[in-house]
C-alpha cells in the first residue's frame, strides 16, 4: 500500500498550483461572458489542464494518458474553487467516442470546435418508450436520396436548448434485431423540423428537455460507424457515464455542509448536533461515505496498477452512491423539522433550498443512468455471474 503519488507527481501538483495562482484572475465566473469562458478554455488546453490527452492534430494538448496527473489537476482546480476545463456531453461523451470510432474527417471536423467550446452538443438517446430498455428506441431514420430523414422523439435531453449539435441514436434498420438496427448520427440543432420542449421535473426546474423530430433531413455521411452499429458506438461511453454517477467526493462535500448545518440549527433550543438520534444517523452516513471513498481509491489504484481487479468495486458505485446521497439530503430535511419544508421563494430556506432539491434530484439519479434495478441486474449478472432473466415463452 502506498497512498502517495510520489515526488514526481508532487512536483506536478506544485506546477498546477502555481498555474492557478498566476492565472486566477483570468478564470471566468458564472457571470462571465462566453468569450471569456472560451478564452480560458483555450488557455487550459494550451497548458494541458483540459483536453490533455487529445492529440494536437485534433486541437488537444497531446499528452500521454496519466490518470494521476488528471486526478491532480481535478483536485487542485476543485480545491481552488476556480473553474477547470469545460464539461458537457459533447466533451465528456462525444469526443471520446469520435476519437475511438469516428472517421478521420469527423475527428478533424468536430473535436477541436467541441473542446474549445465553439460547438455545444446534446445527447439524443432515451425516448419515452425506451428507458431501461434503451435498445427498443423507435425514432427512425429513413434514407431518402443522400439524406437521412428522421422522425420521432427523444427525452432527457439536457442542454438541448443551448446545444448547436446533437449526437443521436436512431433506428435505421427496422428489420434487424433490436440491438442491430440502430445508427449513431450527428446533426445540427438548427436543422428544420426539430422542436424542443423544456421538461420540468419534480424539483420544479427544467433540468431536461424533450426533443421532437419531424422529417429532419441529415446528410448521409453524418453517421459515426456503420449503419446498424450505433448501439456498439454508444455503449462504450454509456458505461463511462455511469462511472460518473455516485461520486463520493461530492457526498463528502455535502456531508460537511450537513455537519455545519447541525452545528448551527437548533431544535427546541438545543443544537441539532446534540440530538443523539440525528447524530447517530449522521455518523452512519459518515461511515458509508468513508467506505465509498476508500472504494474509489481502490478503483483508481486498479487503473494505475496492472493486475488489480476492481470491477465489482466499480459496478456498485452508482447504486450505492446515489442512495447514499439521497439519504444524506433526507437527514438534513429531518433535522430541520418544519424548516426543512421551506422551498422556492421562502426567506427561511437553508443552503438555498438545496436539501430539498437535492433530495429529489438524487432520487432522479437513482432512476437515471440505469435505474437501481438495472444496476442490481448488472451486479448480479456481470459481477456475480448469476444467470440472466430467462426469455419469456411467447
Amino acid at each position: 500500500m502506498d497512498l502517495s503519488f510520489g515526488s514526481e507527481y508532487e512536483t506536478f501538483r506544485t506546477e498546477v498550483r502555481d498555474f492557478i495562482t498566476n492565472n486566477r484572475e483570468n478564470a471566468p465566473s458564472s457571470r462571465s461572458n462566453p468569450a471569456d469562458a472560451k478564452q480560458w478554455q483555450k488557455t487550459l488546453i494550451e497548458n494541458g489542464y483540459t483536453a490533455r490527452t487529445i492529440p494536437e492534430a485534433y486541437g488537444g494538448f497531446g499528452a500521454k494518458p496519466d490518470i494521476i496527473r488528471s486526478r491532480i489537476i481535478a483536485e487542485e482546480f476543485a480545491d481552488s474553487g476556480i473553474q477547470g476545463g469545460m464539461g458537457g456531453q459533447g466533451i465528456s461523451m462525444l469526443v471520446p467516442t469520435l476519437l475511438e470510432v469516428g472517421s478521420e474527417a469527423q475527428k478533424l471536423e468536430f473535436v477541436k470546435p467541441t473542446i474549445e467550446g465553439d460547438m455545444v452538443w446534446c445527447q439524443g438517446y432515451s425516448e419515452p418508450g425506451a428507458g431501461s430498455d434503451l435498445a427498443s428506441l423507435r425514432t427512425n431514420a429513413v434514407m431518402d436520396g443522400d439524406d437521412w430523414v428522421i422522425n420521432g422523439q427523444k427525452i432527457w435531453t439536457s442542454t438541448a436548448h443551448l446545444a448547436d449539435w446533437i449526437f443521436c441514436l436512431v433506428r435505421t434498420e427496422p428489420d434487424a434485431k433490436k440491438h442491430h438496427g440502430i445508427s449513431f448520427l450527428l446533426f445540427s440543432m438548427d436543422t428544420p423540423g426539430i422542436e424542443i420542449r423544456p421538461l420540468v421535473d419534480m424539483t420544479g426546474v427544467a433540468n431536461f428537455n424533450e426533443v421532437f423530430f419531424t422529417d429532419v433531413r441529415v446528410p448521409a455521411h453524418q453517421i459515426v460507424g456503420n449503419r446498424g452499429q450505433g448501439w456498439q458506438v454508444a455503449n462504450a461511453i454509456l458505461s463511462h457515464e455511469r462511472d460518473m454517477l455516485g461520486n463520493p467526493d461530492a457526498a463528502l462535500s455535502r456531508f460537511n455542509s450537513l455537519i455545519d448545518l447541525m452545528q448551527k440549527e437548533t431544535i427546541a433550543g438545543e443544537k441539532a448536533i446534540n440530538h443523539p438520534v440525528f447524530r447517530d444517523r449522521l455518523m452512519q452516513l459518515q461511515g458509508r461515505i468513508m467506505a465509498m471513498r476508500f472504494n474509489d481509491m481502490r478503483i483508481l489504484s486498479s487503473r494505475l496498477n496492472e493486475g488489480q481487479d476492481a470491477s465489482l468495486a466499480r459496478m456498485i458505485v452508482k447504486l450505492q452512491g446515489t442512495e447514499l446521497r439521497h439519504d444524506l439530503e433526507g437527514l438534513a430535511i429531518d433535522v430541520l423539522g418544519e424548516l426543512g419544508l421551506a422551498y422556492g421563494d421562502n426567506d427561511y430556506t437553508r443552503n438555498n433550498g438545496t436539501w430539498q432539491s437535492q433530495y429529489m434530484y438524487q432520487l432522479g439519479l437513482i432512476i437515471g443512468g440505469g435505474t437501481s434495478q438495472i444496476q442490481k441486474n448488472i451486479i448480479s449478472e456481470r459481477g456475480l455471474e448469476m444467470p440472466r432473466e430467462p426469455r419469456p415463452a411467447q
Partner: protein
Amino acid sequence: MEFGLSQEQTLLQDSVNRFLNDQVSLDEVRKVAAADKDDKAIWQGLTELGIPALIIPEDKGGVGLGAVEAAIVAELLGYHATPSPFISSAIMAPVALAGKRDDLVANIAAGTCRVGIAFGEAIAAKDKAGVTASNNKLSGLSLFALDIDADYYLVATNDQQLYLVTANAVKRNNMATIDLTRTTCELVFNESEAELISTDTEDFNRALDIGRIMLAADTLGAGQNMIDQAVSYAKEREQFDRPIASFQAVKHMCAEMAAGLEPCRSMVWYAAHAYDNLPEETRLTTCHTKAHISEVGKFVAKTSTEVHGGMGFTDLVGLHYWFKRIGFNRQLLGSPELLRQQAAQLQGLAA
C-alpha cells in the same frame, strides 16, 4: 364488534370521493400549485357537501360527526392531493374554539370563515421564532402557520396557551414549501391584539392530536394513491417486450409498499376512534400513528417514484405532488423523531 366503516361512513366516503374525482383533477391541482387559482372554489364545493361542518356539533350548526369521519375525509383529500384548509379550519380550529367562540364555530360550519393554525413554535420553537403573550397582546414570530387565506389564526404561544387573532392584526407573509397544494405563512406579531381562548394545555393538545391524526390520514391517502399509480403504470409500461409489472423486482417493490401501508389504514381508524372514545389511549396512539405513517409514507413516496422510472421524476405525470404532500405531512406538527420522543415520555420511558 365492528372495526370498519359503517354504511353511513361509506356513503360519506363515496360522496366526497365523487366530488373530488370530478372537481379536483390533476389539472386543477396544478393550477393551484402554480398560483393561477386559490383553493376557494374547491372549498366552496366541499362546503356544499358539509365538510367544514363535519365534526361541529349539530346544535352549533354542524353535522355532528366524529374523528373517524374526519379521517375518512382527510384520507380522500390526501388521495386527491386536494388544496383545502380542511385540517386547520374544519378540524383543529373547531375543536379548540368549541364552547369558547361558538359564533365563529358556526361561521366555520357555514363556510363563511376560515381559521388558520399557528402551532409550530409551541411544538418545537425554531431559532429566532416563538410567540409570547402579555395582556392579550401577542409578540414574536410563528412560522409555517397553516392557511394563507384564513380570516383568523388560532395561535399557540411557546407555553401552549391558545389565542385567537384576526388576520388583520398580524403581518402575514407567504412561505413557500415543497408542497404547493397547501399554503403556509409567516406570522409576525407585534403587540398584536389577541383573544385568549385557553390557558389549559389540554385544549392545545386535543387540537394538536386531531391535527396529527388528520395529517396521518392525509399521508395514508396520498400513499395509497402513489401505490395505485405505480401499480397501474407498471401494468401499462412495457420494457423488454413485457409490462414492467411482470418483473419480480417491480412486483416486490409494489408488494413492499402495500405491505407497509395496509396496516396504516387500521392505525388511522383506531387513532380516530380512540380520539372520540378512548381518551386514555389517544395521545400515545396518535404519536405513533403519525410517526409510523410518516416513515411508511417516505418509503412509499420514494419507491413508487422509482417504479415510474424517469416519468416519476418529471412534472408530466405529476406524481411529485403526492411525494411532496407526504413530505409536508411528515414534518408538520411534529416530525417522527419528535413524536417518538413524546411517545416515550407519555409512557414514562423518557424524561
